[in-house]
């Protein structure tokens, strides 16, 4: 789960990471009143989970009450790369002497947390990594040992931060590592981390990704999830316990097992089709789960045909067939279905489908044949 900047900063503040003071606002009045309280100049910042907010005009400095109103009005409702701005963060403007970059990430390759520090802050760090890799100091931390003071010193000296801020930057890294571990994050990133003319070190931005699997231990963080920001179809699938990702094609896909479903999307694309979704019905799906999944797939009006690709292990072919038959009774779909059933109880499943004689349901014996067929059907009804 990705946090918005202001949510990340509130988490930072709980762990003693210095951040500028600020307030959350959802209307122009709230923003102007927050700005009056914080004092001028202040910064009005769009809260959306996407980079490039500044370039898009989503971050503006206000020097007085009227400007705060104008900026808040302009930014609220603004579209930034496909996302609409519903929330603002108003914070005290900071004077900047230096801009650094700091992060703690879950390094899958090394299977250890990786702490990074660079004096090239305020720009795209992937670009820095490509053009000037030596400008980023990196250090893996043994998770059983944790972040030690020497780690902070070493990173600060290797990155070449100003000598007078080696200690506070090291302390900042230790607190960011504390956020990473305590909140069970997979990413904690500060870009820029600033040094003010008074030589204070502060996090001017906050990017925090939390591990969804650990949210049961962090009920406060779990509440930060914003269902209104989710796609309605994805939300519907989640409420029904289905693993679902919306895509932009017109062929609905249902399969069992993440790898097989991903592969099904690829095979459909190779056959010239365009999948409308990824849907993993999971292992051991019973008939009602299948019915429920069909409802989710068909809630997308773009869907012109549906492909079931099942290789039963724990999942039984007869249960899948019963679920589809039930879905036809319940919602009477108008688009064609192609069903490929293999594995556990596949013969029983195919027999059930044959007996039910559902309109517009075609069975295929191979994955490739089923993909071909569904692509033809989608093209014919598009």
């Amino acid at each position: 789960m990705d946090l918005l900047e202001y949510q990340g900063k509130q988490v930072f503040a709980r762990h003693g990471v210095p951040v500028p003071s600020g307030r959350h606002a959802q209307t122009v009045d709230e923003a102007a009143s927050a700005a009056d309280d914080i004092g001028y100049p202040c910064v009005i910042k769009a809260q959306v989970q996407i980079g490039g907010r500044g370039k898009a005009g989503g971050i503006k400095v206000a020097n007085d009450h009227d400007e705060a109103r104008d900026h808040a009005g302009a930014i609220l409702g603004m579209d930034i790369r496909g996302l609409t701005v519903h929330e603002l963060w108003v914070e005290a403007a900071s004077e900047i002497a230096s801009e650094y970059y700091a992060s703690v990430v879950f390094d899958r390759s090394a299977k250890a947390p990786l702490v990074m520090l660079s004096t090239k802050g305020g720009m795209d760090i992937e670009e820095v990594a490509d053009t000037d890799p030596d400008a980023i100091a990196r250090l893996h931390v043994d998770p059983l040992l944790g972040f030690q003071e020497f780690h902070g010193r070493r990173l600060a000296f290797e990155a070449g931060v100003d000598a007078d801020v080696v200690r506070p930057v090291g302390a900042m890294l230790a607190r960011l590592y504390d956020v990473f571990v305590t909140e069970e994050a997979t990413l904690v990133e500060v870009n820029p981390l600033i040094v003010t003319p008074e030589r204070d070190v502060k996090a001017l931005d906050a990017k925090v990704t939390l591990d969804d699997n650990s949210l049961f231990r962090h009920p406060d963080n779990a509440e930060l999830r914003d269902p209104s920001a989710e796609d309605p179809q994805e939300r519907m699938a989640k409420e029904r316990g289905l693993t679902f990702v919306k895509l932009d094609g017109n062929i609905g896909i249902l399969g069992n097992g993440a790898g097989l479903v991903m592969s099904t999307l690829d095979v459909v694309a190779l056959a010239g089709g365009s999948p409308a979704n990824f849907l993993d019905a999971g292992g051991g799906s019973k008939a009602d789960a299948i019915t429920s999944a069909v409802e989710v797939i068909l809630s997308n009006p773009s869907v012109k045909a549906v492909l079931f690709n099942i290789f039963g292990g724990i999942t039984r072919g007869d249960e899948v067939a019963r679920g589809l038959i039930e879905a036809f009774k319940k919602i009477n779909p108008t688009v064609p279905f192609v069903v490929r059933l293999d594995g556990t109880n596949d013969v029983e499943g195919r027999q059930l489908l044959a007996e039910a004689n559902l309109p517009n349901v075609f069975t295929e014996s191979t994955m490739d044949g089923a993909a071909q067929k569904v692509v033809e059907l989608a093209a014919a009804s598009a």
Partner: protein
Amino acid sequence: MSILVDTNTRLCVSGITGREGTFHSLRNRDYGTQVVGGVTPGKGGQDVEGIPVFNTFHEAVARTDANTAMIFVPPRFAADSILEAEDAGVSLIIAITEGIPAHDELRAYSVIKKNGRARLIGPNCPGILSPGKANVGIIPAAFFKQGNVGVVSRSGTLTYQIGNVLAQSGFGNSTIVGIGGDPVPGSDFIDIIGMLQDDPETELIVMCGEIGGDNEERAADFIADNVTKPVVAYIAGFTAPPGKTMGHAGAIVSGTRGTAKAKAEALESKGVRVGRTPTEVAEIAVSLLGAAA
């Protein structure tokens, strides 16, 4: 021969008294696996259809000489159970559980690596099957027979799909290893491919990768330097959009990293044949092995 599990496997199941744990323990036993015990805290002294249940792994190991553990407990208890099995001296730990918190997984992995006395397979994996010898996990064994193709995969059902096409062509498997779909797998492609290279029964290796991480890219380098047997690969997720987790926690393209295309190219550049579909993988394997026995 085969790798990791065989007729010497003595399996102890953590979570054996749960619904899924019971079901699969019995299925594994029916297949011929020696299921010597189970662990459920507070249920020591009971039995599951004749399989004794213990309160702790330490007691289970002392009483049964278990050398393999299968972890079937819910995610919030799973890392603790892995660590308990490791502490009790079990040398092979197979974690089926999906959804373990990432930091728990990292801690368990780090302890196992530091102590160096156990191998972890998974988590979030379907287990290991050595056809005709032992099945530990949830792989539907009926679709596979003994043979000379070793398989290592991040995905369960995709493995069944490819295995089935191979079986229809007359081929069987030495061992099938599911390494799982999580970001921090206990064992990587490299670990398992190395074992299959050393296994006399295995004549060809099939690896099934997917988007996310760089496990496949590192496997490509390893194969070039260390593997003399033919390797055929499949990568799932060519059409997966960036930034979306495709079911498996580990299956995500981050920015431009972890794409299927980059993985396929890395493997092909080291001489590994990559099939575009599961069917094509099986066809390449069949052509490399010659006519079916």
